[in-house]
């Protein structure tokens, strides 16, 4: 009865205003979250975005509740002390987890890898499937699911094969000593000029790499758009051999000259 008597009209209005402000702020936060989800949809996975949205929403509700309790004169110092102890215990118990989580946040901010990119992280090569809070998921080139803790990703040397717009392709082709290198060069450059995805600039290079024991080793270097790199690399080598052979230039077998002394 005493409680009901203490409720006055002004208190009811105060409560109504607090609830109203809560709903207004809640809607604003939901709109902001939706905008961020659209902006970040290519950068973070759907799961991570959902977790992040929930964390922000529940964090806001908790914060608002604490503010309202403080406003109504409820002493939260006990709660703060208990919370402090709890934080220390949780912190000690989840040191590794927190380390991975912080590394995950830095990976999201620095973005050395992006979803769908082809990367090598330490010994693992593959496609980035997901950057989660605690770990990064890679689909290896053999199609395996690889989970790497974010702390390891953050500290590892990362080779991002898709970050630059172009990549170089290198071939090493052997020709016979009896073949004309300049003719071989002309044939190879003509073939490269006909392929649309071999870049005209930087210009392709063909040069003698080494005079080996059984052959002249010819280095072929050219650039291709990163997204066409594998297709071009896999395609051209057999055509180079075919063109060389059509022009009388052959890839030699290993040879050994044996001298017999009487």
């Amino acid at each position, binding site marked *: 009865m005493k409680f009901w008597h203490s409720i006055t009209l002004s208190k009811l209005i105060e409560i109504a205003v607090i609830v109203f402000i809560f709903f207004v702020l809640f809607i604003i936060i939901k709109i902001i979250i939706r905008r961020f989800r659209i902006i970040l949809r290519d950068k973070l996975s759907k799961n991570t975005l959902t977790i992040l949205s929930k964390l922000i929403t529940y964090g806001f509700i908790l914060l608002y509740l604490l503010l309202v309790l403080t406003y109504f004169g409820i002493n939260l110092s006990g709660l703060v002390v208990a919370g402090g102890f709890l934080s220390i215990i949780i912190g000690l118990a989840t040191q590794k987890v927190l380390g991975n989580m912080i590394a995950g946040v830095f990976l999201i901010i620095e973005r050395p890898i992006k979803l769908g990119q082809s990367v090598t992280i330490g010994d693992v090569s593959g496609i980035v499937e997901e950057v989660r809070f605690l770990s990064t998921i890679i689909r290896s080139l053999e199609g395996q699911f690889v989970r790497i803790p974010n702390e390891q990703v953050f500290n590892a040397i990362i080779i991002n094969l898709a*970050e*630059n*717009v*172009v*990549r170089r392709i290198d071939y090493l082709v052997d020709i016979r000593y009896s073949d004309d290198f300049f003719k071989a060069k002309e044939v190879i450059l003509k073939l490269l*000029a*006909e392929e*649309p*995805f071999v*870049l*005209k*600039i*930087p210009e392709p290079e063909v040069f003698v790499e080494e005079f080996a024991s059984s052959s002249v080793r010819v280095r072929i270097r050219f*650039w291709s*758009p990163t*997204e*066409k790199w594998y297709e071009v690399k896999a395609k051209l080598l057999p055509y180079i051999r075919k063109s060389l052979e059509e022009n009388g230039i052959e890839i030699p077998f290993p040879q050994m000259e044996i001298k017999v002394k009487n």
Partner: protein
Amino acid sequence: MLDINKYDFFPFNPIYRSDSFEFFFKKIDSFFLYQRKVSELDFYSQIISVQDITKIYLQPSEPFAEGFDTRFLLLKFTEPLLLLPDSSLEGYVDFPISLSLFIIDNQNKIHHINTFSLLKPKLALYGNPHNGKICRFWESSFSSSIPNEKPFATGVLQLYINNPTSSKIIITRLVLDFSFMELYFKFNSCKTSARVKIVSDKFAETEFITPRDIEGYSKSIDLIPTRILTSSKFLMEFGL
């Protein structure tokens, strides 16, 4: 069979033929099968969800690089251009074009169905491997007179190059953002214009503009949607 020798609207016919390409249309139940042949090696086929075609429309388009998404054209000059301090240069070069095919349905609505090029595209990098732009490559000679066009393959680009600086500048190439290209055509020839403003020996601003003397010419339908918030100027920042 209908012969095509110009850019225009043509009444519907199952076969269209020009010296360098052929189109085939075949009605199959509730859709059309469209086929395009440029050479023995370039044959393309697709199904179109349309009940009836009354006309087709062929026009020149921006120099897309088939199989690769780029909106930049790198124009390399056969002979470098030397611009003296506070001077300007006007002239012509040829440039590659694409061909765009549209169909007009029985409700008089126009639909773009295919874009292709008679010239095999070649790509080039402008800038460094990290921040550079991959462009469609084209080499051309700067001339004071209008160069000969290859019908359905090339167009004419009129260039206005201005060097307001106090240094002499050598230009070996230009990079243009063709998403802002204004292409005009008459019969089987097409033209556009671009302005180049030199900022320093390493920088220049390039921009497509409306060409002069366009009376009797028609404007090509832009295939790249206009980006309102983007500048039509491209800043060449990796050298000239």
